[in-house]
């Protein structure tokens, strides 16, 4: 007899998406089962040994503000931390931390194991069970049935995955783990379109065989900023491990060029579409032929091991070429490779089949998140995971889904891009994808999203009250500097002179001084006699909000326009071919994507502004007809 069990939510896959999804669902009191092909690889980092980075750091902060785990987990397990772009504007400051990979994985496993209502199960899910376009459960390879009300697909790169270098290819998942070879067929049977994507990872070498004297040491920041808004900054100030910088050279490039015919990418053995943002070293050498060298960052995989990650040298060249090219690099002349670089091909779903809640449009209760949706990166995965987890729980509870829009969060940009744009490669977050990035800063993720996290039920009352206090003191202090004036007193003029700032002819507000390029909130403390003592994070917010007020207001006005369009909902059952005057291309695209609102419709490639106008008129016509009908009924 096969086993047969029931629960509320099934999560398939325990990577970064799966962990957040399962934790969110369980914390929202859903009885949740988290499936993984290997319990020892929960929250595994099969590629780069870090969390965060440009725009990805924003995602981690947002996940944290919603009540997710990634930020807390990296705060517990990082070995080096750096705030990138500190010399640039606040919108592009980005936190990145090197992780101890095993600690990261263990720590996450511990959290999961201590979450009530959450169960881990090592098994390969082979089939999604449905009835009348509703999900009813899953079946494992061994035949066990788990009946449930919602399923979240977080299969990462495991679906029919194949790892390749040179002539060698294995049908395995990352790091030699077992691939999931059955589920793809079940998805296809359900009418789900699959894509074949490709990505890759560089080699790992033994740190004992590296000559660091030929490399430039890369230190972490002196003052470490934690990811999570709940982490006490004092508790993360610790001894850090260094990374190292070295470069490829013309000899490396010659070797690569001579062996291009042995690369499965160039000989056509790989069919999947690779990402442009993390090209293999052979790609870089071919596409940027004029570059004489490429940077390589040598990064530790953790404190438990001597393995070092060769950031910048992703490849699928044969083993012998890999070894030879590594040996051309200063400091790596005698490096011994522990793991080879490889490319990995896998099935993922076309995310256009999802709506913005990450539920399949055509299968009720079936959600999907992470690399299974054609994204890339741990952070992108976690961000989708928490949203899918929240929405699966809300679906079961009969509540409206949580959908963040492009003006609220990078998470909103990420999901909107996935569901409305055509994806030809694994999708990576970038700050340039966010139209309103001046508003979507990593420093204010809590101000943007804690309220929502609290409403959803993932933010504790205690944390929420702390947040409200912070928000209020920011407001009060901004108000104060906008209304307090200083005149041309000697002390003030002396101060301005010191900073090479124009002296005052008449009184100005403190805010006006903060806005001067050469001054800021911290600097003017000297002449701001009534300043109350405030925590660092409040001071930072006041400075940013005042200093960049002009730009921020401009973006807020744009957001108003944007939200008008987002607020115009489109009925989910609308048949676009009935809308006269829409062009054929628009009808076809709109029927395929089924946008939630007019704003989303306008972002679909192939839908013109005139189509949007026509659609608006049609919707108004429909509404009036229905109103007239309802009024007629009342009269009866």
């Amino acid at each position, binding site marked *: 007899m096969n086993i047969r069990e029931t629960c509320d939510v099934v999560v398939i896959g325990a990577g970064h998406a799966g962990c957040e999804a399962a934790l969110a669902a369980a914390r929202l009191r859903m009885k949740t089962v988290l499936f993984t092909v290997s319990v020892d690889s929960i929250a595994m980092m099969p*590629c*780069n040994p870090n969390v965060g980075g*440009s*725009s990805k750091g924003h995602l981690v902060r947002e996940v944290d503000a919603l009540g997710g785990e990634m930020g807390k987990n990296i705060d517990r397990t990082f070995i080096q931390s750096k705030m*990138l*772009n500190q*010399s*640039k*504007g606040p*919108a*592009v400051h980005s936190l990145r931390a090197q992780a101890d990979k095993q600690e990261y994985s263990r720590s996450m496993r511990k959290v999961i194991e201590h979450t009530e209502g959450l169960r881990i199960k090592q098994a390969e899910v082979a089939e999604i069970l449905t009835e009348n376009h509703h999900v009813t459960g899953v079946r494992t390879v061994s035949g066990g049935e788990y009946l449930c009300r919602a399923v979240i697909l977080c299969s990462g790169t495991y679906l029919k995955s194949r790892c390749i270098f040179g002539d060698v290819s294995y049908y395995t998942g990352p790091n030699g783990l077992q691939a999931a070879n059955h589920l793809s067929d079940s998805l296809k049977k359900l009418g789900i379109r699959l894509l074949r994507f490709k990505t890759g990872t*560089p080699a790992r070498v033994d740190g004992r065989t590296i000559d660091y004297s030929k490399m430039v040491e890369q230190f972490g920041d002196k003052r470490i900023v934690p990811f999570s808004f709940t982490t006490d900054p004092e508790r993360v100030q610790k001894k850090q491990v260094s990374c190292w910088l070295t470069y490829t050279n013309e000899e490396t490039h010659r070797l690569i060029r001579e062996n291009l015919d042995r690369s499965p990418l160039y000989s056509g053995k790989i069919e999947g579409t690779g*990402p*442009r*943002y*993390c*090209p293999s070293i052979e790609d*870089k050498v071919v*596409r*940027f032929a004029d*570059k004489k060298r*490429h*940077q390589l*960052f040598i990064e530790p995989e953790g404190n438990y091991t001597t393995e070092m990650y060769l*950031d*910048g040298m*992703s490849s699928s060249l044969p083993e012998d070429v890999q070894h030879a090219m590594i040996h051309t690099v200063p400091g790596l002349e005698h490096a011994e490779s522990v793991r080879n670089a490889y490319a990995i091909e896998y099935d993922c779903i076309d995310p256009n089949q999802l709506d913005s809640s990450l539920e399949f449009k055509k299968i009720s209760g079936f959600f999907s998140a992470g690399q299974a949706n054609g994204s890339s990166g741990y952070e992108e995965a976690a961000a989708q995971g928490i949203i899918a987890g929240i929405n699966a729980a809300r679906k079961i509870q009969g509540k409206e889904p949580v959908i963040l829009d492009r003006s609220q969060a990078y998470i909103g940009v990420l999901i909107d891009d996935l569901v409305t*744009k055509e994806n030809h490669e694994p999708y990576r977050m*970038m*700050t*340039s*994808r966010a139209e309103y*990035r*001046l508003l979507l800063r990593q420093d204010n993720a809590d101000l943007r999203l804690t309220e929502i996290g609290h409403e959803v039920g993932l933010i504790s009352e205690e944390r929420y009250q702390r947040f409200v206090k912070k928000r209020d003191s920011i407001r009060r202090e901004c108000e104060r500097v906008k209304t307090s004036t200083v005149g041309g007193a000697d002390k003030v003029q002396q101060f301005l002179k010191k900073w090479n700032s124009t002296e005052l002819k008449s009184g100005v507000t403190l805010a006006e001084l903060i806005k001067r*390029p*050469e001054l800021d909130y911290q600097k003017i403390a000297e002449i701001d006699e009534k300043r109350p003592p405030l925590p660092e994070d409040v001071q930072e917010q006041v400075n940013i909000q005042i200093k960049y007020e002009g*730009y921020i207001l*401009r*973006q807020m006005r744009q957001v108003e326009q944007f939200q008008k369009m987002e607020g115009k909902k489109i009925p989910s059952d609308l048949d676009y071919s009935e*809308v*006269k*005057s829409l062009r054929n291309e628009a009808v076809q695209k709109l029927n395929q994507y089924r946008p939630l609102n007019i704003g989303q419709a306008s972002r679909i*490639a192939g839908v*013109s*502004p*005139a189509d949007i*106008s*026509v659609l*608006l*008129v*049609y919707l*108004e*016509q429909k509404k*009036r*007809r229905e109103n*007239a009908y309802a009024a007629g009924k009342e009269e009866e």
Partner: protein
Amino acid sequence: MNTDTIAAIASGLTQSGIGIIRISGSDAVAVADRVFFMKNKKIADMPSHTIHYGSIRSGGEKIDEGIALIMLAPHSYTAENVVEIQCHGGPLVMRKTLQAVLQSGARLAEPGEFTKRAFLNGRIDLSQAEAVMDVIRAQNDFALHSSVSQLSGMLSEKIRKMRSEILYEVAHLEAALDDPEHLPLDGYSEHLADVLHQLIPEISELIRHAESSEKLSEGIRTVILGRPNAGKSSLLNCLLGEERAIVTDIAGTTRDTLEESIRLDGFSLRLVDTAGIRKTNNIVEKMGVSRAMQQAEDADLILYVVDSSSHLDENDKEIIHLLKGRKAIVLMNKSDLPPVIDRKQLMELTGQPVIAISAREGTGMEEFRQKAAELFDIGEIGKNDQIAVTSVRHREALADALHSLELVERSIDDQMPEDFYTIDLMDAYRSLGSIIGEEVGEDLINEIFRKFCMGK
């Protein structure tokens, strides 16, 4: 309801008796008050459904006289606040009026947008919904078609080039922000400032050309000034006679002026109030001068005729004062007689180009023609129909792009961090794109990956 305020020419841009500029939206009245001026009253204080006489102005300049119709929400075509300004039906006057409205807070309406608003606001019957959709569709197709067909290959080529330069810079910035350890931005601000120093004059030139080409299609509104007996009417006769030009008499519909048009090579001068000039031989000479001075306020070009054989008088002083900051040519007439004023002196006094002519003998006319062409950049346009940005929409888009690039310049001056530049750079990219019908889409992301090597 709060809607943005839109405006367009509602009467069609062809020559007709009356031109109608329609303004609709929450701020319609405020916008109209910035353009339409009445004696001692404001449109904002007037009741709905009233008609008022006044003058249409842009900056300090009077464009035309006309009437304003006020129709407040909900009793208007769009059910929003609507002000219609009626002016003379010439394309130039209509365009200028629209431009003034657009500079005063309205945006140019999309094709079919008034009708769309009328429907969405419940002014148009449900049964007409499909007709409304057809109108939107048809007007858009027409606008797109005519807009693209108006573009010369040279112009779209030029705009494409500017766009690709802007996109490259944004991609550079974004790549560096995304991967700061790979691509430093040291010295980038200076580089970008250089790029802007090149782009900004290019766009300004396109706008200037657009203005010139509008003038060209209309004829340059020209007024001849000069004290009595300076030789205005002989100049007129000389211009008309010597050129053997096509002379048309257009009786003004409401104003008591007579216009005559002189075609020079590739462009024409529209001489205003020629009747006035001819009348100056009569007793009311003095009146003629002051009347011409009024006309001169609206003119694109002033021809100031000086009698070089006698000293300047009060009239001259008044005229010289009026020339400040205007496009003008000083014609030193009667060069066949012994002079008492010298050319250099006149140039210093007026700050304008001076040409010696003899209207009676017809000398100096070639130099005059060249100077006029120079003043309006006609030489270039005439030679290689380079840029003919004729539609208001294109000009608006160019002006928007220019404004955005100027904002980038300001951000650089203010030492803002580099990521702030991209906001306005992308706006400029978008505005330029709207001229050639191209949207932004995935351009930036594609450019980043195409041009910059990034990633692990």
